[in-house]
């Protein structure tokens, strides 16, 4: 047996099975030169014109683009860029009908040409031989070249195959009966095509290059023979005319006798096939730096006065081309994109020409009868004549496929190798029963694909469902365990009989009260009823447990707040009432009116009454807690119930205010800590009021339905609590606060405020203030990074300053003011504030840092304060950044905490006392961090 090459030289080719001989209509266009189409008024450029994904648009509406300018970029190998076919303005990006059998719409870019056709700057590269393979591939990819024979497979993917290539086959067969685009291209531009072939030769280095061309194109054959005469390994293979010899698989079989195995690319056989037009485009792209912006389109059909080939810009509407060629048919119009065998009908004539469009066919009624005409014949039953099986180039059994397709027997269809059908249409062409076989296959293929997708989806859903079930199971177990532990712990403490136990009892009572409140509220929808019930219940508990008023208040407020959160239709009044109740109840000795933020007095003037203040703080705490509560799932409610108890326990054990904190993840505990702090420092009734206001603001924020605002504002108050706290600890003098506030009233920006206050502060504080300013900036940044819309929040803060009469905003302002106070009076404090702020905002997890530092600072000497402040600031910055980057990862928190602990004690001037304390703090911090990590792990999956 001869080798492939010998056979080809002799002109002996293989044959593929089947095939048909539809009537030739190439004479309509094959003798006329390629005309140059004018630039239409509008170009519609689909973003995706090939098989694969669309690129990303990089121009905007209104942009002026030059001819050849890149309009979209490819971000993966299967996507290709598109280019401006002419210079003009991008007038729209919208969904338009694209050239697809479905007539569906996809994103298209509308370009209004300016008529000047100005090129972008091009770089001619005459010596492609010196280019590396990669450069050429890049050039091909950047020119947006996709297979121009019809399928539109990205060329650079096809060419960048790693397989060893024996044959490069240039497909010039063009077997569709009407199309002459390649024929004409060869006749007129064979040198360029040859360049393209040479470039491919350079890239692929195949042993042989075969140009397959049907024998009905004598001129083209002649021309090709002439240009390739002196090249040894290029063979012109003139093959007999038969449809569909231009099919990739068929042409390979004809030329090499090999069959491409099902589901495998030809490159595995060492064969790469390229269309002639693609070669032309490659040459253009590599040598003259011209992207694929125009192509030869055969505009043919007997309904046209002057059918011809035209150079059409990509994006030219079909109607424009047919009009130029004298489309006269006024009866039922039928436009086909592609050939008569494999092309598809167009739903209108505003469909653009794309990279794969090789033909526009406007047939007359005689050529292709429309379904409305009387001469058209209808589909009848299959008589199993087998003509289709004889014609099928893939040796399928079309009639059996058709039966199975009608019966939707998908397994059988796959058994009959439906997916090896190339949809050439030969079977339907020969069918005496006029059955649109190909259409049946297409539907069946689409259905099978859909079914496969569904199967995959079902499988995924199943996995997810199983995973969820597992998770729920795990959570249930974890919860049960937690309950059990907590119950045991409580029991143990109850039995201890210490004063702490008492307080625990009260906590239990509070929990009870809350539960009751919950029940009550679930029974009724009326706000007032609930309020009263809650009050009653709370009062009861107050009476029962005298020493834990605050907690009762907690419970009530929480219950209420929760309800509010649930209903999400909170009225301002109801909140106010709620707060009133919360405030009034524990504090029989009033001062409530001042606390009620309705009168927006910033200056805290109330006398230092411990109980009063406490109660207010408690109210704030309650609010905060309520919020936290509302955020949690029901599953965590029970866990929440334990929190006060745990907090108390810690407090009892370690006899320091800061240590009492942060057993838990929830912000309410932080507030609790602050409560404790405030208790220990009996001056801060003012702060308490502020806290109350904060709470109110928060509640209001909650009432706001809009999500962004809700989030931001809701978080802010929580953040502020430690601020107050620290402020309290540092013992800010009222005298100093007042000017600060007045300052802050005038200056909207926090930074500016700090700088202004600088002047008034002494030299040391000035320094610190600067540090604080830096930190504040950092905070702002991290805020911006975070999803909580910091900008909005700031804007709101500004607004707060301007509009004091607004209740809600006054609340905000309260929260703002202590911050400024501290920053002006004491840098350290402001740092803390900021740190806290940043931390809590990013994390929502209370950190022990404030307490830790706070403690240190308390014991500090003024001279060392400066330095410490800097350190703290640095730490805060680092932390803020880190936290901004990470999510609520507990490990991060832990490491930060540890980091801090490492840093702060070492740099501190070492008095024994301090060292000790620092160590304690460190240990506590560590322990806490660990706990945090554990608990957040638990709570995370439920988020």
């Amino acid at each position, binding site marked *: 047996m001869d080798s492939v090459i010998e056979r080809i030289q002799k002109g002996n080719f293989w044959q593929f099975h089947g095939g048909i001989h539809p009537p030739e209509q190439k004479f309509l266009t094959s003798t006329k030169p390629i005309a140059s189409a004018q630039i239409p008024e509008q170009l519609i450029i689909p973003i995706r014109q090939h098989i694969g994904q669309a690129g990303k648009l990089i121009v905007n509406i209104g942009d002026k683009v030059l001819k050849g300018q890149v309009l979209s970029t490819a971000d993966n190998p299967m996507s290709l860029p598109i280019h401006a076919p002419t210079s003009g303005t991008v007038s729209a990006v919208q969904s338009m009908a694209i050239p697809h059998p479905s007539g569906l719409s996809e994103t298209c870019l509308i370009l209004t040409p300016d008529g000047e056709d100005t090129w972008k700057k091009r770089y001619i590269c005459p010596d492609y031989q010196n280019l590396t393979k990669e450069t050429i591939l890049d050039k091909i990819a950047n020119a947006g070249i996709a297979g121009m024979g019809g399928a539109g497979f990205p060329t650079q993917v096809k060419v960048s195959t790693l397989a060893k290539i024996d044959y490069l086959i240039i497909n010039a067969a063009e077997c569709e009966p009407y199309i002459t685009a390649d024929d004409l291209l060869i006749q007129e531009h064979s040198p360029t095509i040859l360049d393209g072939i040479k470039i491919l030769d350079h890239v692929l280095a195949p042993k042989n290059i075969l140009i397959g061309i049907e024998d009905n194109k004598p001129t083209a054959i002649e021309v090709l023979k002439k240009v390739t005469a002196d090249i040894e390994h290029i063979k012109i293979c003139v093959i007999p005319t038969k449809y569909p010899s231009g099919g990739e698989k068929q042409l390979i079989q004809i030329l090499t006798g090999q069959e491409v195995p099902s589901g495998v690319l030809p490159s595995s056989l060492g064969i790469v096939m390229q269309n002639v037009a693609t070669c032309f485009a490659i040459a253009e792209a590599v040598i003259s730096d011209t992207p694929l912006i125009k192509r030869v389109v055969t505009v043919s059909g007997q309904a046209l006065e002057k059918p011809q080939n035209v150079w059409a810009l990509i994006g030219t509407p079909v109607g424009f081309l047919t009009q130029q060629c004298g489309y006269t048919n006024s009866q*039922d119009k039928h436009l*086909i994109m592609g050939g008569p065998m494999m092309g598809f*009908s167009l739903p209108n004539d505003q469909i653009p020409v794309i990279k794969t469009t090789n033909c526009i066919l406007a047939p007359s009624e005689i050529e292709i009868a429309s379904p409305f005409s009387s001469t058209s*014949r209808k589909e*009848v039953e299959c008589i199993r*004549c087998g003509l289709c099986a004889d014609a099928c180039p893939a*040796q399928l059994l079309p009639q059996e496929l058709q039966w199975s397709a009608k019966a939707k027997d998908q397994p059988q269809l796959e058994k009959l190798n439906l997916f090896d059908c190339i949809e050439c249409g030969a079977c339907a*062409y020969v069918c005496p*029963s006029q059955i649109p076989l190909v259409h049946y296959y*297409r539907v069946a293929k689409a259905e099978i694909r859909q079914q496969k997708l569904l199967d995959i989806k079902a499988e995924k859903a199943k996995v997810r469902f199983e995973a969820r079930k597992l998770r729920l199971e795990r959570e249930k177990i974890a919860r049960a365990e937690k309950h059990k532990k907590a119950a045991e712990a409580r029991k143990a403490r109850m039995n201890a009989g210490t004063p702490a136990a008492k307080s625990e009892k009260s906590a239990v009572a509070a929990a009870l009260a809350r539960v009751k409140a919950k029940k009550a509220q679930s029974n009724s929808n009326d706000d007032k009823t609930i309020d009263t019930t809650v009050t009653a219940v709370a009062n009861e508990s107050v009476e029962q447990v005298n020493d834990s008023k605050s907690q009762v208040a907690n419970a009530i407020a929480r219950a209420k707040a929760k309800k509010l959160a649930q209903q999400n239709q909170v009225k301002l009044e109801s909140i106010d009432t709620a707060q009133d109740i919360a405030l009034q109840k524990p504090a029989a000795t009033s001062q409530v009116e001042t606390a009620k933020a309705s009168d927006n007095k910033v200056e805290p003037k109330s006398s230092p009454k411990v109980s009063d203040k406490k109660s207010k703080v408690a109210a704030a705490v309650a609010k905060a807690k309520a919020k936290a509560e509302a955020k949690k799932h029901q599953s965590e409610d029970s866990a929440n119930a334990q929190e006060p108890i745990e907090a108390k326990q810690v407090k009892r054990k370690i006899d320091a205010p800061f240590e009492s904190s942060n057993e838990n993840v929830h912000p309410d505990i932080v507030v609790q800590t602050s409560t404790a702090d405030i208790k220990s420092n009996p001056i801060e009734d003012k702060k308490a009021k502020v806290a109350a206001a904060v709470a109110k603001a928060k509640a209001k924020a909650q009432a706001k339905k809009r999500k962004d605002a809700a989030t931001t504002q809701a978080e802010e108050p929580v953040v502020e609590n430690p601020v107050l706290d620290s402020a309290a600890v540092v013992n800010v003098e009222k005298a100093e606060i007042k000017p600060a506030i007045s300052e802050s009233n005038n200056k909207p920006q926090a930074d500016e405020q700090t700088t202004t206050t600088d002047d008034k502060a002494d030299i040391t504080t000035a320094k610190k203030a600067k540090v604080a300013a830096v930190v504040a900036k950092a905070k702002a940044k991290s805020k911006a990074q975070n999803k909580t819309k910091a900008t909005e929040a700031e804007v709101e803060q500004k607004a707060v300053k301007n509009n004091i009469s607004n209740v809600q905003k006054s609340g905000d302002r309260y929260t703002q003011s202590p911050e400024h106070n501290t920053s002006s009076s004491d840098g350290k404090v402001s740092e803390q504030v900021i740190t806290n702020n940043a931390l809590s905002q990013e994390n929502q997890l209370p950190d022990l840092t404030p307490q830790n530092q706070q403690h240190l600072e308390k014991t500090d000497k003024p001279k060392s304060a400066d330095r410490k402040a800097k350190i703290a600031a640095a730490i805060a910055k680092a932390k803020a950044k880190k936290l901004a980057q990470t999510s609520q990862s507990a490990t991060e928190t832990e490491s930060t905490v540890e980091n801090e602990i490492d840093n702060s004690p070492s740099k501190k001037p070492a008095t024994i006392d301090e060292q000790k304390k620092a160590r304690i703090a460190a240990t506590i911090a560590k322990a806490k961090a660990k706990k945090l990590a554990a608990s957040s792990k638990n709570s995370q999956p439920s988020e």
Partner: protein
Amino acid sequence: MAFWIASSPHNHQQSETSALMRMVIYATIPGIFAQWYFFGWGNLIHISLAVITAIIAEFTILSLRKKQITQQLFDGSAILTAVLLGISLPALAPWWVTITGTVFAIVVVKQLYGGLGHNPFNPAMAAYVMLLISFPVQMTSWQPPLSLLAMDIQLTDTLYVIFSGYTPQGYSVEQIRTHIDGFTMATPLDTVKTNLTLGLTVVESMEAPTIGKHFGVGWEWINAGFLLGGLFLLSKKAIHWTTPTSFLFSLFVCSFIAFIISPDSSASTMFHWFTGATMLGAFFILTDPVSGATSVKGRLIFGALAGLLVFLIRKFGGYPDAVAFAVLLCNMSAPLIDQYTRPRTYGHQLGEKK
């Protein structure tokens, strides 16, 4: 005015199922002519009777099933069935045989399965077999060739016989069939078979008057006529060459082997080819695509099986001619043959049968 949408391919070979059917019907003309020439008007009458019945039956069923009547009625398949049945019936069979057979063919064998394209059996042959089994006497009362008849039978005579059983002269079918010599005439195949049972050799029975010079008076010409029609169809590519070739070849081989083994008890191969309904079966019945195998390989097997069965039943079976039975048996096995003879799809290896 609007754009209209169609699925590709947009152009189409100008062929039609009904045209195909018509062509097949035209191709039967030489055979029918020979039949008329040698056996008189009988078959023509049966054919027209069958065609009318078929159209009525088809019309009834189609209207019952609310299908497109005009289109399906004239797709030619029912008429073709009727023609084939009319051809294969004995010339002097009574009229009700034709009608029963045609109704059975159209209603039961064709339409109950869903009409054209769905019937697993060849309607004409199934009806023939049904008639043969149900009315053996009428169905075996073959009329001898006209030249051997004692009396002259005209068109009116035939009509009378078919519709009343007697000629206007009062002769019964039996009487007509009786040879001048008083022998009852039969088909050549029947003669050979009967003679064999009587202990005569094939050569001896060849001398019987009904067989004539070659393989039977008239019969060889009828078969030749159908062969001609078949070749016409082949040239027009209305039928595929595989089935007839394989059938005739298989019959040839079988009979040749038998002839070699025992020339006395076996008829010659040519005798098998040119008697009975061999050519009719080969070109018009086995090639019915609906009830046959579809792939090339399948058709080869299908034809060969039919040839084997024809020979077996002719040689050993109780019935003189076997084409109808063989066709039915092959129809039965066609789906199975199809299932196991699917061609290898492009790009799939032979062994890899999914």
